[in-house]
């Protein structure tokens, strides 16, 4: 009996020794575009999208120009691309994003003029939404402890960003990659500064934008079994 107990304890101990170990991984993530990282790129032009008869928001800055500047800065910081300076007077043949994608002659000409491998362009739709208004809120009275409903004034400003990023081959003018990027940010304040709002959207999209051009790593943890 005693021998059985000792044997059982030893077996339990042996099983208990088999454990786990957490390990840190750096998972490689390839860029969506197969690039070496040393290509010559031209950034622009970006056009502002219009939804039917809706008027373009009255802003104190140009959204496409700011986005172009931001994208240049990001690509310079994160990659080793050769970024060709902006060419003055580049006018897209159409302001319709769907038709512009098909204008391969325009993109080929721009590519030849700048001598680049790829052109990064696209269309942008940036909306500022003042969402202020009355909202029904549940309220428990401190006097009688009963629940009441009251109307409260909620002041919010929403910023939505809808980008269609297009990459064209600089030699042929053909569209080689297209990626939609969307983000929405809400600020608990009315008439929140549009410029700050726009950059809050852009910072949220940064990983997605850079993931198109540059390989990244994702830090994570997994568990291994140890015998």
């Amino acid at each position, binding site marked *: 009996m005693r021998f059985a107990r000792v044997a059982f304890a030893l077996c339990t101990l042996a099983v208990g020794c088999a454990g786990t170990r957490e390990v840190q991984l750096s998972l490689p993530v390839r860029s969506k575009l197969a690039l070496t990282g040393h290509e010559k790129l031209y950034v622009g032009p970006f056009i502002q999208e219009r939804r039917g008869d809706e008027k373009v928001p009255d802003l104190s800055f140009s959204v496409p120009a700011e986005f172009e500047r931001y994208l240049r800065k990001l690509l310079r910081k994160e990659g080793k691309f050769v970024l060709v300076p902006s060419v003055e007077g580049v006018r897209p043949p159409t302001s319709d994003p769907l038709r512009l994608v098909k204008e391969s002659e325009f993109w080929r000409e721009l590519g030849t003029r700048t001598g680049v491998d790829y052109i990064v362009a696209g269309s942008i739709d940036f909306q500022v939404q003042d969402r202020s208004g009355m909202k029904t809120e549940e309220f428990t009275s401190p006097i009688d402890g009963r629940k009441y409903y009251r109307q409260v004034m909620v002041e919010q400003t929403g910023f939505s960003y809808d980008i269609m990023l297009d990459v064209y081959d600089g030699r042929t003018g053909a569209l080689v990659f297209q990626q939609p990027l969307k983000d929405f940010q809400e600020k608990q304040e009315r008439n929140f500064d549009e410029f700050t709002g726009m950059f809050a959207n852009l910072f949220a999209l940064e*990983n997605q934008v850079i993931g198109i051009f540059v390989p990244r790593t994702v830090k994570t943890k997994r*568990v291994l079994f140890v015998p």
Partner: protein
Amino acid sequence: MRFGVVVVGLALISGACASSTKPAVRASAEMNEGVQGARRGYWQEALFRFERARQLTPENGEILNNLAVALEALGRYDEALAMYKQALQATPKNNIIRKNYARFAEFYTSYAKGVKPKVGPDALR
């Protein structure tokens, strides 16, 4: 005297176990080597060791899990996915394998579809 009998008995049992489970013991040794390699970041070596351990005991879910992690670390995501599935088939109720698989699936979906990964352990650096 009694203690001596117990020791001899245990030695006989362990000897019998060693001869009958030799591949399992060797697989454990390989797995141990693999984990040591993984801890140092030598994932290629870890993969080699886990692969050998699997050849010795093919249906062991824990070995399959370690293999999947090594494949993941080397960026061989499609193979890692298949391996996690095999590991779960071998031991469907193992919570650690399920957790690993869930984390991997989240990453794999984001990576494959280009969706922005959530903030947390898998957040982008």
